């Protein structure tokens, strides 16, 4: 049973400090082991954020969202996407819709509004700064949840390998173009979004399961590895020497693991606070809380731009080929 004390403790603490701050809770289907809290500043306002995992228990997540409804300024959905935005189509995952509908007063967001705007810009900035270079091979461990990123890589001249079928379904079939990705999404997603979410994506303890390097050749062949952290962690091989990894929701332990694997540069798509990079749902919820604007609104793009979101770049190891890193 979820006591209200952990969440309300954050809420009450910040009010006791005499400052009226916004409060955001990320309700995650992920493991409780990754729970954390912090404060961040967006558009000049302080936001207290907290992640609360439910170990893959959908009913517990519904109950928690109902308890938070009207008590906080925005709720993020973690460990699950509500919307998969692929080109001009938006597919709604039914389990996530059920979670979102558990709140009637407080806005509930899933991070897709950040992925489809800010993550495109982040790839462009890495490209323009010469951190990554056209012609390099990019393994995106999952792309249907980050189509904007995949499309941007392809448009800028990178060799795209989308691993959606490899890592979600264990089918040795790399998807090599955004057009094919869009075609597969059009055929698969209308049915898949109606499946229980745990059949589509690891939740709860499955997120911390043992490493499974059977698809190592896709990692070995890539210069850049991008996308969902849990897929990367689970399927990465013994060494990632010299690779660039672009992901988020990393903890200090995750960063140490990447460093030990030889990762050259770790790019997080969301800011790092207290050693962690937050999920896109947290950032989107915080932005909604301070701006009152949601991702479906015409002003959303301007709000994201005005927020000046910054990912982070951390050099973890020297470039094995020498030269600029």
């Amino acid at each position: 049973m979820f006591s209200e004390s952990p969440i309300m403790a954050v809420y009450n603490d910040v009010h006791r400090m005499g400052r009226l701050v916004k409060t955001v809770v990320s309700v995650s289907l992920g493991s409780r082991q990754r729970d954390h809290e912090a404060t961040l500043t967006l558009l000049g306002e302080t936001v207290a954020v907290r992640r609360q995992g439910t170990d893959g228990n959908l009913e517990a997540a519904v109950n928690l969202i109902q308890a938070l409804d009207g008590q906080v300024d925005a709720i993020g959905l973690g460990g699950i996407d509500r919307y998969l935005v692929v080109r001009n189509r938006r597919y709604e995952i039914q389990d996530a819709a059920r979670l979102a509908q558990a709140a009637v007063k407080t806005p509930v967001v899933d991070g897709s509004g950040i992925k489809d705007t800010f993550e495109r810009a982040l790839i462009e900035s890495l490209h323009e700064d010469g951190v990554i270079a056209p012609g390099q091979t990019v393994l995106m461990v999952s792309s249907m949840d980050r189509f904007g990123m995949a499309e941007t890589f392809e448009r800028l001249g990178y060799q795209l390998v989308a691993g959606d079928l490899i890592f979600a379904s264990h089918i040795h079939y790399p998807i090599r173009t955004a057009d094919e990705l869009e075609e597969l999404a059009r055929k698969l997603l209308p049915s898949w979004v109606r499946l229980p979410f745990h059949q589509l994506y690891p939740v709860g303890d499955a997120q911390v399961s043992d490493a499974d390097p059977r698809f190592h050749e896709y990692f070995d062949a890539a210069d850049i590895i991008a996308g969902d952290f849990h897929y990367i962690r689970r399927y990465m091989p013994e060494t990632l020497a010299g690779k660039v990894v672009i992901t988020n929701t990393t903890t200090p332990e995750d960063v140490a693991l990447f460093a030990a694997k030889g990762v050259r540069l770790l790019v997080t798509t969301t800011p790092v606070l207290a050693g962690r990079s937050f999920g896109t749902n947290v950032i989107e919820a915080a932005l909604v809380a301070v701006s009152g604007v949601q991702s479906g609104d015409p002003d959303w793009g301007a709000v994201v731009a005005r927020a000046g979101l910054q990912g982070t770049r951390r050099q973890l190891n020297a470039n094995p080929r020498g030269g600029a890193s």
Partner: protein
Amino acid sequence: MTLLEALEKFVSECNQNERLRAMNRDWTRRIQLEPDDTHRTHHLVSEAGIVSAGSGPVDNPDMLIQAPEAILTAVFSGQMTPTEPYNAGDLLVKGHQDDIMRLDILSLLIWGE
């Protein structure tokens, strides 16, 4: 359309599709279909990217699919997605989750949209 005709249609679509052959090149499985009303058993066999179908049981099946024959026929002829009867409890699949997902993917890539 009989169940066997639906399976033969499914097999033909799989084998003519270059992408599906590539996906199945390392997938060797025996799948037994057991209509729980007519009890007329059928099977599918996938080997090195090529799928075949037939009447009767198969030795040591990797996967069992049970449903009324009309539902099996509808699913393998593309008139119904597997998700619909699966979520309703009308389609029971016993086997490895990866194989279940793959069969779902094959049918959606043939008849999806």
